[in-house]
Each structure stands twice: as C-alpha cells, then as structure tokens.
C-alpha cells in the first residue's frame, strides 16, 4: 500500500459501507467479504477517500457500490487494467481490485498474469466461487473438471486453473488464501495484503449458495495452514501444489521491489512505464 493516512478518529467498519443495500442472494459468501474489507479498512484507520476499490463485472464485482470508498465498477475482465491506470495516476491512493474467478481468470486472465509480473502496489481480492454466478451457473476456470450441472453435463473435463501457483509463477509479491466465513482470518489477511508492497493476491473462497450449494461444506473443510508463510517461491509453490485447496492464510511473501513510477507522482527510481504502456 501507499501513503497510509490514518483517519484522525477511527471509523467503525459499518461506517465504510455506502448504505446501498446489496442485492446478493441471502447466504452469499460475498456479504462476508464486504464485512471483512470494511473491518480491514477500519483496523488500518484508512480514510475512505484515500482508498479506491475497482472491480469488473459479476455478482462479486458489485462490491465497490457497497463501500464508501472511491469505487469503479468496470468492464467484465478489465478490473486489473483499470486498477493499474488508477494506481499510476494516483499512486497515493490505496488501490484494491476485487472481483470473481470468471472476471479475473477467464475473460481477464491475461491481465492477471501481467499484473503479477508488473508488480504495481495493488491488492487483488478474488471472491472465488468456482462458477459464473451472475450469468446463472456456468463453469468457470476454477471449476472442478467433473462438476456436473445442467449447463455442463458430466463436467467440463477441463483441468481447473490454479490461481495461487499461477500468481506465484508470474511474480506476485504476496499470495494468500482465505475463506469468506472466517471473518477474523480473512480480515487479517486483507490487512497484510494491503500493507505488503507490490501486487498482493488474495484468493477468498466465497460460496455461491445458489449455483454451488455444495460449497456450504467449505466451512467444514477449511483450516488454518499448518505452517507459516514462506519467502521462498519454490517452497510456496510446492506447498500450494500439494495441499487440498483448503489451507488458509498467507502462503508467500516476496521482497521484489514494487513497480515504481518515474513521474512526479511516483518515486524517483527508473521506470519502464512509458515503454510498457505503449502499444
């Protein structure tokens, strides 16, 4: 995160809510993620006007509307490029990018790789429900190959996308897994992700009770990761590849310097921004 400007008087989590009533289904995991983000912002005493939450399209991507921070409800799959533009124009803001697994790994998958690689100081929270919720239950890139549904009878037969290892392999500086129902743990993880410099990726398992009622079982399956995070990417990769997908907590912390800007808004280090953003 950037120049954290704590509020003079700490705001309560509820005060970070916009007052717009969410239209998520009752029981949707995303309600808890909303709560956890407000708790994190409150604990860090961030002023709402110093935070921007950028999303794409999907049920989860509605989240900026429910927060009092700056919000940008963007284009399907383009949350990351929007967040990147915002961050380079206003590096002083704490930029949180949020959305779903479809938005982030399917239509926007390409951007995910390059955001990890570029390492701008952004926190990316993906509410992973392994389904396209908003368009009524199609398989997403993280759906199990054999998940049977009316739309994909017998399953897609396609190997699921592994967001955490892909993030790691692409250069993300902070990698964590959380569960929406674990309020304290997820809040802490979000705080650490925002604090950590560079691109922080948090996969939040967030059940879609409507199209994946089986995910209600997640509550029983998740557990705190048995070991502390590592700073060694290959150890992190091995752990992620060999766990069952339910170990929660910070899994990797890197020390790659975040992308720095050459312009007056940024630091004084050399930047390749000009050439990278040219087509």
């Amino acid at each position: 995160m950037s120049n954290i400007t704590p509020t003079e008087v700490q705001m309560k989590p509820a005060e970070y809510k916009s007052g717009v009533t969410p239209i998520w289904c009752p029981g949707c995991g995303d309600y808890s993620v909303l709560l956890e983000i407000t708790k994190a912002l409150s604990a860090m005493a961030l002023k709402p006007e110093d935070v921007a939450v950028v999303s794409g399209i999907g049920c989860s991507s509605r989240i900026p509307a429910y927060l009092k921070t700056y919000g940008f409800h963007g284009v399907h799959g383009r949350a990351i490029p929007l967040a990147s533009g915002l961050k380079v124009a206003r590096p002083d803001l704490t930029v949180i990018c949020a959305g779903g697994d479809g938005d982030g790994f399917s239509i926007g998958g390409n951007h995910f790789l390059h955001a990890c690689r570029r390492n701008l100081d952004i926190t990316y929270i993906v509410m992973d429900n392994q389904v396209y919720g908003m368009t009524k239950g199609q398989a997403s890139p993280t759906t199990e190959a054999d998940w049977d549904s009316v739309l994909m009878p017998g399953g897609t037969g396609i190997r699921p996308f592994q967001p955490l290892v892909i993030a790691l392999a692409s250069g993300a500086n902070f990698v964590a897994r959380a569960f929406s129902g674990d309020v304290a743990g997820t809040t802490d993880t979000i705080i650490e992700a925002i604090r950590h410099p560079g691109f922080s990726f948090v996969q939040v398992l967030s059940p879609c009770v409507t199209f994946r009622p089986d995910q209600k079982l997640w509550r029983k399956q998740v557990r705190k990761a048995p070991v502390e995070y590592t700073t060694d990417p290959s150890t992190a990769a091995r752990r992620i590849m060999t766990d069952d997908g339910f170990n929660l907590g910070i899994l990797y912390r890197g020390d790659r310097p975040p992308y720095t800007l050459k312009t007056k808004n940024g630091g004084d280090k050399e930047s390749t921004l000009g050439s990278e953003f040219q087509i």
Partner: protein
Amino acid sequence: MDDKNQRMLLSGNHAVAWGARLCRPQVCPVYPITPQTPILEKITEFVTAGEMQAEIITPESEHSAMAASIAAAMTGTRVFTATSSQGLLLMHELLHWAAGVRSSIVMFNVNRTIASPWGFWPDQTDSMAQRDTGWIQIYTESGQESLDAVIQAFKLAEQVKLPTMINHDAFYVSHAVEAVEVPSQQSVDDFLPAINVENRLDPEIGQSVGSNAMQETYRRARQDLGDAMDDVLHAKIEISHEWEKICGRDQHGGIVERYRCEEAELVIVTLGSMCGTVREAIDVMRDQGRAVGLLKVKLFRPFPITMVREALHGVPDVLVLDRNFSPGLGGVLHQELRSALYGMEKAPNIYGYLAGAGGVNVSPEKIIEYADTIEDAVPSSESIWI
C-alpha cells in the same frame, strides 16, 4: 419428433435455439451474457439430449468465441454463435475479420444497452455500432420471425459468403413467450443444403487464410466484399420466397415490410420489437380515419436503399423511430434513411425521434402521440429526444 411441424410455446431466445438446431451447425462457440444466455442453455440441452450434434465450446471471452468461430468456419464447417451488448462490442475486431475472410458464420445478437452506465435494457446501439464490419444485419420483432430468420440466414450467408447477424430486442422479444411454429427437420433439410465452402482450410486444397495484401489486392478484397453485399438483396428475396413456400408464413419479401401503407399520409419507419407496437397504434389511427402506415426494415445491412425509396415514394411525411443512439449523429435508422432518400424526387419530409433509446418503453399510445406531433413539426436533420 421433428418429422412434422410443431406448435410450441417458446421464448424468443428458445425459438432462436430451435432455429439453430434445425440448421445442424457443427460448431457453436458461445460465451454467456445476459440476456443471450438462454440460447446457449437451450442448445446445450439439445446437445446433451443427443438431439443436436454440435460441438459447443465456451471459451474465455467473446473475442475468443468469435476467433474460434472464424477458424472453425474456415475449415468448411457450419458455425452458429450468439451474444449480446458488451459481448458483441468485444468481438468487434474479429467481426471485421470474419467478413474479411468471407466466412459464413451465423450469429444471433440480443440487443441490449451498452456500458457505461450499465443496463440490461432493449437498445440496438450494440449492433448498429457494428454496421461497418461487413456483416449482413437482420432485425426481427418476434420469436417466430427470429426462428425463420436463422434458418434463412444460413442459406444466405453460405450463398453470398458473408457472415450474418440477426438481432432481436432484449426481453421484449428474447424472453417473451409466444406460440411458435417450429418447422420439421425434413423441411429445413430440404431447404438448406449441406455446407460447401470452396476456399477452405483443407490440406487437399492447400490454401491459407489471412495473408498480407499490397494496396491493390487489399482494395480488390474490399471491392469484392462490397460486391457480395450487393448480391445480398437479390439472394435474400429469393431465399425468403422459397422459405415462404415451405413454411407457409408470409415473409414479406424478406427485406422491408409495408403495413397499411395504402395512400398513407404518414409512414412510421422502424425496426425490431417496436414494429409490433407501431402496428397496434396504426390500427387505432386507421380506425380514426387517419392515413398512417408502417415500414418495417428487416434487412439493415446492406441497407435496402432502392426498396426503401420505392416504399416511401410520394409519401408526404415519414417518422423514424430509433431504439438506438449514435452520439454526434442521432438515431442511426433516421440518419441512414435520410441519406437513402437523398436527391429523390418527391422525397418525404423526414422526422426522427429517439423514442426507445436506452430501452424505455414505447406504448401504442405514445406512438399515436408522436404521430400527432408531426402536424406542427418542422422537418429537421437532427434526431429528437422525445
């Protein structure tokens, strides 16, 4: 079950899926988007039940769906896809490509508002914004018309070698349920021959796709595209007549439809779902003794200039209703109609109202109100927000 014609209660989108099923496409790359998704759901259901032998793939975006459609089509395969709004916009780059390589893809687009702001309303700006891509464009007003249009579109696209996009309005047509005559499989098989793509990716032919072209070759390719567009009118009229004979439903010549235009003092011109509403309004006005008619534009690309000129010749006043908006230009149909009638003797006064833009509901009463305004209105080149 498909051996005879059947009458079914279908939503507009399910009628489209039936149309696609009867045409036996082999590959259907589709990415879900509201309000198109029921088309994808229904064809998936058909394939699962073994009633349709298509390979459905759901790639990671519409851009990929169209790329997959092009390549599949270029192997000589019959391809069907469907989308809406943002999905169609994301395809834009490849829409040009699909036409440039002269593929015969048939795509159904459900007209929905485009962002920003976000909305799910019936508005045709999404497809109107693709009018320069080299796709044939057809607009329909009911599930029945959409089903008939899909079947004819395959024949047309494969005959003139141009991709074809059919459009119906979100919800008013896509989700409205009505009785639809579903033709027998046999009748469609008799009407639509097996696909035969001469220039295709086939090791035995040894051709490739997408080479560079120097200016002269490039220009010739564009001219060829234009020539193919010129062939559409004639081909579509023939195809519509042929289909009309088979299905027994009036296809109105397939290009434009005139409704109660005899001796009309005012003709309302529009396309899509608003046509049904205008018809109702016209019946009321005719009962009141007012000489009002409707000209429904079914084929929008190529724009049927000659037929529109014929239809409006000698009509004193024309009112165009647009459910779309091109900032800096106005209603697209209004502006296209103005240029189509340019220089015509006895050209009518033209008025353009942005009536349904943004998806607002336009009732028959509203249409009568619009017609009332014409008496005192001054024709203007600008489209008017009403």
